């Protein structure tokens, strides 16, 4: 865009004319010591917990330790130019970040400043990063699904709007891949997505942005990043920043999905800050309130009822509920879910998707462990068709797991056991899904129906995925109306059941794969 010089000078002129010459009253203090991003300030007797403090050179810090004669401040950004004896001003404000529709499609840092080179964010609204979660009266139970687009998850571990579902697993097990697929699958559903990258490599974040752009999914997504090289305070703040941006949509009666990738790193950043602030260390050297930093964050993901939305929008939006669904990610070390932070977050969330390296390495991707993964509230939100068909899949896999272990030793098995094992193998094969190819409800329904009705039983295990691909493309071209109907209603009545059944039968007769 070309900038007109006169325009700028006009703007500046206006700003100067409107400039309110006021006498500024504030509280001041002096810098006493500077160590590893923690600054001790003498004075500031009126500083609030979490208040923004202004340092020379337009840099800011957050007051965290309030002591009798001094305040412990963590710096948000570079602090190299600050020296002992500098004056520090109170701003009287708790940390706030910009929120609004204008942030969609943008990449911002932990304080909401754009870092994608697309210019300023055109929004006037701001929101404090730390807010109290909606109260008991404001809430509504979870009864609408968020389709993540992955067969194995949507059928067995469904996620509802307003739910908190943990994605947990070792490094390199496809945690982020699930999150990205979930974002891509929200295209066209009206669900706004927020991806918060905490303590990651900049190259990984750039990769995510590029992938989302490629799949046309950046337009409904806000990316908040606090990469590994940024100040610990920013890595700590970033999830709250993203949450405030998501709450903006929730509070005006829309649905949003937020992904925290990952909260282990946030806990590390908080541990670093706390130790430098000389707070007493506890288990694994985490401070005493490490549970609270996660519980207060995840409690803000919720579904609120129409009355609350009406109240929050001042009566502008009526009869609409709002939701913020959270998919926090936790990285475990060597599959140890009983470490401190993983157990904390497992107990806070409404279920977890457990990913395993062994499954991942044996080619089962997404590497979901169906036995250990649960969803405590999602069942109520599942689409009818997926709910009916998913039950069978879950059962098949559970029986298969039980038998598979001892079947390795037995040479001759009875007929029913052999059948169960073979069904299990085929269902496991069917649950595999490529990255960046989320499926619609109808597509999933067809695949699951084929497994439930035994169409896969006669196939070679290696042929299952080819069969599925061919079936999907056949359904797409020959039974588009039926698919559309399933997607619209989500029903699994007799008519639809028969429709799918006959379509698959003709497909088997007429096609090869």
């Amino acid at each position, binding site marked *: 865009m070309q900038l007109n010089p006169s325009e700028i000078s006009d703007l*500046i002129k206006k*700003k*100067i004319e409107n*400039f309110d*010459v006021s*006498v*500024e*009253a*504030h*509280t*001041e*203090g002096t810098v*006493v010591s500077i160590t590893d991003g923690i600054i*001790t300030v*003498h*004075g*500031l*007797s*009126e500083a609030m917990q979490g208040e923004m403090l202004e340092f020379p050179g*337009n840099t800011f810090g957050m007051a965290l330790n309030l*002591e*009798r*004669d*001094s305040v412990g401040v963590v710096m948000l950004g570079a602090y190299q130019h600050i020296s002992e004896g500098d004056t520090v*001003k109170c701003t009287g404000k708790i940390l706030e970040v910009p929120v609004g529709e204008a942030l969609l499609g943008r990449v911002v840092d932990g304080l909401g400043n754009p870092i994608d080179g697309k210019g300023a964010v055109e929004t006037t609204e701001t929101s404090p990063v730390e807010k109290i979660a909606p109260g008991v009266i404001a809430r509504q139970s979870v009864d609408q699904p968020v389709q993540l687009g992955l067969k194995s998850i949507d059928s067995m571990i469904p996620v509802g709007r307003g739910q908190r579902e943990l994605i947990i697993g070792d490094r390199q097990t496809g945690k982020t891949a699930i999150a990205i697929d979930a974002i891509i699958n929200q295209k066209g559903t009206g669900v706004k997505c927020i991806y918060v990258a905490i303590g990651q490599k900049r190259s990984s974040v750039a990769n995510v942005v590029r992938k989302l752009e490629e799949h046309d999914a950046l337009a409904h997504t806000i990316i908040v990043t606090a990469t590994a090289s940024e100040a610990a305070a920013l890595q700590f703040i970033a999830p709250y920043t993203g949450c405030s941006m998501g709450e903006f949509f929730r509070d005006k009666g829309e649905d949003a999905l937020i992904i925290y990738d990952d909260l282990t790193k946030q806990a590390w950043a908080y541990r670093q800050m706390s130790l430098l602030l000389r707070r007493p260390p506890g288990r694994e050297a985490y401070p005493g309130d490490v549970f609270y930093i996660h519980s207060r964050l995840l409690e803000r993901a919720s579904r609120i009822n129409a009355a609350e939305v009406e109240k929050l929008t001042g009566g502008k939006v009526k009869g609409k509920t709002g939701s913020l669904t959270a998919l926090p990610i936790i990285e475990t070390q060597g599959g140890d879910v009983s470490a401190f932070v993983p157990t904390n977050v497992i107990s806070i969330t409404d279920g977890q998707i457990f990913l395993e390296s062994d499954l991942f390495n044996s080619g089962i991707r997404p590497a979901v462990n169906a036995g250990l993964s649960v969803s405590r509230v999602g069942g109520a939100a599942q689409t009818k068709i997926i709910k009916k068909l998913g039950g069978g899949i879950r059962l098949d896999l559970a029986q298969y797991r039980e038998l598979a272990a001892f079947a390795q030793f037995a040479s001759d098995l009875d007929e029913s056991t052999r059948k169960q094992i073979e069904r299990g193998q085929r269902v496991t094969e069917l649950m595999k899904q490529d990255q960046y190819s989320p499926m619609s409800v109808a597509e999933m329904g067809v695949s699951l129906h084929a497994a439930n009705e035994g169409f896969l039983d006669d196939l070679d295990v290696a042929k299952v995925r080819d069969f599925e691909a061919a079936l999907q493309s056949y359904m797409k071209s020959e039974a588009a109306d039926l698919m559309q109907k399933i997607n619209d209603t989500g029903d699994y009545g007799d008519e639809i059941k028969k429709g799918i059944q006959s379509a698959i039968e003709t497909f088997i007769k007429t096609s090869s794969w």
Partner: protein
Amino acid sequence: MSELSTLARPYAEAVFKIAVESKSTSDWSEMLEFLSAVMQDKEMVAIVRNPKVSQEQLTTLIMDICQEQVKEQSASFVKLLVQNERLILAPQISELFEAYKAEHEGYVDVELTSAYALTKEEQKKFATTLKKQLGKDVKITTSIDKSLLGGYIAKAGDKVIDGSVKGQLQQLAKKL
């Protein structure tokens, strides 16, 4: 600095209570000011910190320096500081003592910095307006700082009222 004043607080509190009881706050204030001036001397600090100097030697030295400044009670206070190895805190104790004194007597010390020298009348005006704002009597000490360009800055403890042209320009710069 902050930790030192935490350590100095109980001493200042105790001394202030004694001073109020014996109605000799100004004597104590003078004495503490003198002691803090002594303790700000570099050589003096070196001597106090030197472990080879015994407590008796130190006491006699301080008493020699202070001479008439210290009377019965203040002498025992100095001895106590020597015994507890807290002589180094004298400046902080003095500072806190002054703060207690100001609070007790119901006034605040205000540092008024202006770009140009203020006339007596102007000072009076400031005193009355500041009294209204802070709700206490004010004791004004003035200084001149040309870099403010115009206007004034009033400092009362942590509180700063910035009415200088420099501050306003900084605000404007931030807005642009």
